[in-house]
């Protein structure tokens, strides 16, 4: 039990070691603090093992019956979800902290920065292991402020503007979260997770927003919580803070994109039984997630700076993750955020090297322009056929026959398989470009690798789902709650498939110098869209304009209402 408490405690100790002491020992202390960070990571792994073998750990410093008499009831509830998040956060932190010690060497504010990194980890760990909504909100709020402080270089106007935007936008989402907490307590009389889930399931409450319009209590609460999650997970249209914070030091991004941004996904997963009671909220999450995934990925393609590209990639991935939640695939969302966190931390920590190399070598990254082939060979067509048609069929058969997943009853699984097909095929197409020069050997190796990845992924996800939610009925109930009308679902799948295959064909033919007839207006629209997405939909400018208008109105109001006391 105490092992759990040691995880945040060691991170706090690390922060204290960095912060307290004479300036001449600054660097030595920074190095020493790496040990408690490492021990915290080992503690998290131990906690994961303990939770997996002996069940959830509960530590409370308050009496459950008098929870509201405490301003902040401090308690820990560490289940498998918390333990996984703790392991992810601490393992990423070990790498980031050690990287930061070297990266910030000789920086004037390195001490403050490193202490803040440790403190952020501490806050994250406390947040994911909270036993009630109030404690979770406490650390959620502190995290919002830490993101402001972590911008680090407060003398730089761009950084400062980004940090302020981050803080204020996150506060908007936090306010919705707070309203959700207040409403949850008013309706169900508890902020304890387990009790809240039981009471919400047992006591259906209808709230009347205005005459003739009623929503269920669970829907109202989860919608408010969802807005809170949207903020931290940078969902459209509250995503602007993430690209705005890109002036911060690189390790901050690694931590942000690998740990902090997952808070939204964590919140939805933590409250999954509550979200499972509201189909409306899950559908809203699906729409917002899809929109964010599409816009984030599109804007990523049009950026010309590595940090912005990665930033928008994260937004797209977070959209994808929220979309998975909206489909009721909560465990997949967690799997996704763990995988994405590890991947994005690596990429961010390496992006400095890429920039450095690009400055030294004018031809880096290498331009992969071979002599274009005139004809498409049989091999090319054959590989394309197998990748796009045969493999999906194989996946479906194996899923249906071997893993015995009822595909027709579960839209979430169908969509999951659909995305496996799209992403893996896209990866293979991008890697090989299906060049006709590719030999049988290369094509075979790539296809086998693809199959291997797909099935390992499928197996891993299935195992992970069973680990996180051991009760299959619970998983099924989430999928059921998130189910869309059949016609809409089929239409979406067909449309997405058609668009994807058409897109691939178009890109492939263009890459090989084929002329494709296209009406002139489409080309015009394409260019305009490119400019629009390159400028990130002018969302920053729109927000700025709105801010200016608002301030002008406030100023006018202030002038008209002054006189008495001024």
């Amino acid at each position: 039990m105490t092992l759990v408490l040691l995880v945040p405690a060691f991170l706090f100790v690390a922060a204290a070691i960095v912060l307290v002491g004479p300036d001449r020992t600054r660097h030595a202390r920074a190095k020493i603090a790496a040990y408690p960070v490492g021990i915290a990571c080992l503690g998290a792994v131990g906690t994961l093992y303990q939770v997996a073998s002996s069940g959830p750990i509960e530590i409370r410093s308050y009496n459950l019956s008098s929870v509201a008499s405490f301003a902040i009831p401090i308690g820990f509830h560490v289940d498998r979800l918390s333990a996984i998040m703790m392991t992810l956060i601490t393992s990423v932190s070990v790498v980031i902290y050690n990287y930061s010690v070297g990266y910030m060497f000789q920086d004037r504010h390195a001490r403050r920065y490193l202490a803040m990194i440790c403190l952020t980890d501490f806050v994250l760990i406390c947040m994911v292991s909270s036993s009630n909504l109030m404690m979770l909100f406490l650390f959620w709020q502190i995290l919002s402020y830490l993101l402001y402080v972590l911008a680090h270089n407060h003398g730089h106007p761009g950084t400062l503007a980004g940090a302020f935007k981050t803080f204020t936008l996150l506060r908007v989402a936090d306010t919705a979260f707070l309203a959700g907490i207040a409403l949850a307590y008013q309706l169900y009389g508890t902020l304890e997770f387990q009790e809240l889930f039981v009471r919400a399931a047992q006591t259906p409450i209808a709230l009347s927003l205005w005459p003739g319009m009623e929503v269920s209590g669970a829907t109202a609460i989860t919608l408010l919580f969802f807005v809170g999650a949207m903020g931290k997970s940078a969902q459209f249209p509250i995503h602007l803070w993430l690209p705005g914070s890109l002036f911060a030091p690189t390790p901050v991004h690694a931590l942000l994109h690998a740990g902090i941004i997952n808070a939204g996904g964590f919140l939805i997963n933590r409250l999954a039984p509550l979200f499972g009671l509201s189909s409306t909220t899950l559908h809203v999450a699906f729409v917002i997630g899809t929109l964010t995934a599409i816009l984030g990925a599109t804007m990523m393609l049009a950026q010309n700076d590595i940090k912005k590209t990665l930033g928008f990639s994260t937004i797209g991935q977070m959209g994808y993750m929220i979309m998975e939640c909206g489909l009721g695939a909560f465990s997949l969302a967690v799997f996704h955020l763990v995988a994405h966190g590890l991947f994005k931390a690596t990429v961010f920590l390496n992006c400095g090297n890429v920039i450095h190399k690009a400055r030294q070598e004018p031809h880096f990254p290498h331009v992969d322009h071979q002599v274009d082939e005139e004809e498409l060979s049989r091999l090319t067509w054959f590989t394309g056929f197998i990748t796009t048609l045969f493999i999906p069929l194989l996946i479906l058969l194996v899923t249906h026959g071997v893993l015995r997943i009822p595909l027709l009853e579960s839209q979430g699984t169908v969509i999951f398989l659909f995305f496996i097909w799209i992403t893996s095929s896209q990866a293979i197409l991008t890697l090989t470009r299906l060049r006709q020069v590719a030999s049988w050997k290369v094509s075979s190796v790539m296809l086998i690798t693809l199959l291997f990845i797909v099935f390992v992924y499928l197996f891993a996800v299935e195992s992970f789902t069973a680990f996180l939610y051991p009760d299959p009925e619970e998983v099924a109930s989430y999928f059921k709650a998130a189910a869309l009308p059949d016609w809409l679902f089929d239409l979406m799948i067909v449309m997405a498939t058609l668009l994807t295959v058409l897109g691939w064909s178009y890109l492939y033919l263009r890459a090989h110098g084929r002329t494709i007839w296209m009406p002139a207006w489409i080309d015009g629209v394409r260019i305009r869209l490119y400019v629009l997405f390159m400028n990130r939909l002018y969302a920053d400018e729109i927000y700025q304009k709105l801010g200016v208008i608002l301030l002008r109105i406030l100023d006018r109001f202030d002038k008209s209402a002054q006189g008495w006391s001024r």
Partner: protein
Amino acid sequence: MKGGALITSVLAGLPLLGALTSLLFWSNPARLKLSSVVWSAVSLGSIAGLSGQFVIPPEGLLPLYLLPLTAIISLLGQPPHADHRLSWITTLAFLGLGLCVLTNQPPVSSLASMLLFSAVALLLYRHHSVLWPMSWWGIGTYVLGALCATLSLAANAPLSSVALLVGSAVLLPLMPFHDGHLTALTRLPGNLPSFIVLLLPIIGLHGLATVLPTVPDVVAWIVSLFALAGAFYGAIKALAQTRVRLLLAYGSLSFFSMLWWFAAATRTATPRSALLVGTVGLATSGLLIAWQVVRTRYGDDIDPQAVSGLASGMPQYAVLLSLLALAAMGLPPFGVFAGFMGLLLSAPFPSSGGLVITLLAWLAASWYIMQMVQRLLFGLRRPELRYTDVLRTELAALLIVVLVLLALGLAPATLFAPDQTMSATHSIMGRSYGIGNDN
């Protein structure tokens, strides 16, 4: 009974005696300040020592502890100077009158209120400058308060109740009686604004606790409308301010109006209400002291944008101001958040629209306070400015405020008085929604 009267007389009399004896050091400002701090500390000690021997007010003991504590920090935050002597003596006198109101019953408490109103009005009449000209509206509001205090004493119900309610609205600012609050915070001399911002609202809350259960429903409904308007108006006005003292005055008006809304809904003022009023007052007091630090160095009413980069030149000040700002904007784990959440969780919302307005006002605080802090602390360091970090007394004052706000944010609400509201709320919810009492 006689013993109780003696004890309350001692509690109120000690600071008044301190004011008289401190006059002996009139020619030596440093000693005068020290004497004022010591007498305030003695007052705090007397409250702690005698707390079990007098009737606890309905809003609990917290206000009684906070009054001398705020007097101490407001005195500590002021540099010794001959110009501030009057404000130090007045602080002790106001502390005595405040304790008299809180620990006594009418007519003594009403007389003390009347004296307090009159003294503030007189000070406002005497103290104004080119930067802060005379405000007849503000003075008039306190004169109205004094009249209300007299009327509450002389008239019968329901007129006395209405008078007490209006008097409370002047002290604990509620639109349209908020001008006194704005004027007092901007024009009173020396350390008085940083003391008054807690003293008057606390006394107003005390009056509210007495009068709210007796007012008719329609009056409570009107009060809640004014409260919501005040919360919104205060936030809007604070967003538009560039002058720090006005910004803080409007910001605190917004938060106090939230309390009015909750109080009008529950028709009572509980220790949770005292927690919100006390912590909002204390946080604003801390910010006023922090602003006093800047004023001492760079002149009165300076534009915050003209002073930037304090974070690198005055690191201790920067850390304390940041923490105070977090507390003042209602972020956890500080007391303002605890008070706000305590009311959110204990009172059933009278309307969802009201809750939205309250939350918007809460959200707006993070905009205007953060902007003010950012302008002061961050940005480029100015080579033409000399940066001197906080002095020992300033450090002590700001540190005490931060620590007390933190302690109040973490302490259980029942520490200063048992709160019956929670169990009442539980039973109400249990009846309304059929929730079993199985927790």
